């Protein structure tokens, strides 16, 4: 329970880093959750992050899973509120002045310029993530097969993730 203020601080901060999606925040999430606060091990963090990809709705609701592990159901609620409310208020406020800034020339520059930077942040996060997730030839093959199938077929990504679970349960014990 004494971890509640830390949960609020960590996830409130991480939410502001989610430019272009949750992956941008992963490297700092790892530092804060694994190294600084020691709430989870590196393996536990990537497990929980990956299960979040199976969830409907916002895939970063895995912050509630971390909060639950640290401080039970109150921890889950605080993590979710800290992660979703501050950026939500920012979005709400900017949405209200949207009409006024729509014609602002720099707005288009910001959107165009941040496009590739957001990709770089996500790829950077994914490299950090992949270093922990791909640990041998089985995981490498699973990753490559899923990569190929998601690009070449229209199979539901949730099924690919469940396929990964099945392969893992059989081949990684």
């Amino acid at each position, binding site marked *: 329970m004494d971890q509640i203020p830390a949960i609020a601080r960590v996830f409130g901060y991480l*939410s502001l880093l*989610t430019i272009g*999606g949750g*992956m941008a925040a992963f*490297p700092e999430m790892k530092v804060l959750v694994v190294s600084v606060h020691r709430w989870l091990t590196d*393996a*536990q963090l*990537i*497990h929980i*992050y990956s*299960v979040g*990809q199976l*969830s*409907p*709705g*916002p895939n970063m*609701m895995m912050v509630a*899973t971390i909060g639950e592990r640290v401080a039970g*159901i109150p921890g889950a*609620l605080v993590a*979710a509120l800290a992660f*979703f409310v501050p950026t939500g208020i920012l*979005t*709400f406020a900017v*949405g209200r002045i*949207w*009409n006024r800034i*729509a014609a602002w020339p*720099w*707005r288009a*520059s910001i*959107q*165009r310029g941040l*496009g*590739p*930077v957001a*990709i*770089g*942040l*996500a*790829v*950077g*996060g994914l*490299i950090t993530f*992949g270093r922990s997730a791909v640990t041998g030839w*089985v995981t490498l093959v*699973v*990753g490559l097969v899923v*990569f190929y199938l*998601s690009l070449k077929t229209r199979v539901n*990504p*949730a*099924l690919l*993730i469940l396929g*990964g*679970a099945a*392969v*893992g*349960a059989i081949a*990684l014990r």
Partner: protein
Amino acid sequence: MTEAVAASKPKAVSTLEIFGVFLQIGATSFGGGVVAYLRSALVTKKRWLDDKEFLELMSLSNTLPGLNATNMAILAGDRLGGTPGAVAAMTGMCLPALILMTAAGIAYGASGNRPIVTAALHGVAAAATGLIAATWYQIGKKTVKGFYDAFFILAAVLGINHFKLSVPVVLLSVGALAIFAYRPVKKTDRPHEDSHAWIRSLQ
């Protein structure tokens, strides 16, 4: 505040109805790609927004921190039902995932240490790596239009992974440089239309 809502076309949608639609999306959008679910519900089925409005909200949602799923819920909810609409949409979008992922935490605590569970989750992590890589590969293919884009991607990746910089530092350096490179005076590109085409191509 109220005049901003009045300025954008007011729509007669009840708060409860907004909550119901977003709750349904929040509960059924398995496999990511919430944007496609949103478009199907808001534009195609309910006709609460037209395509142009939807893309406008998407482009704003993409520039702001936060996830598309929740940013879009807030922006669309506000447009449809003002402040109560935004709160209803956000709550509906998040509630199912909040319950599921809290339950996942409890289940993980109960059996996360069993070898078969650890092995399965490691398989899940490997699959998630491939999946997320594919998503960003597709976005990258549509965004990279020349040397500048490739350069900014590389600079951000090196900043994060090689120089271990924090996201705010990368945004203040590489981000600022990128915005400057696409500054308004430049006449060769038309960023506003570009970003719309990019968002459209994701659907």
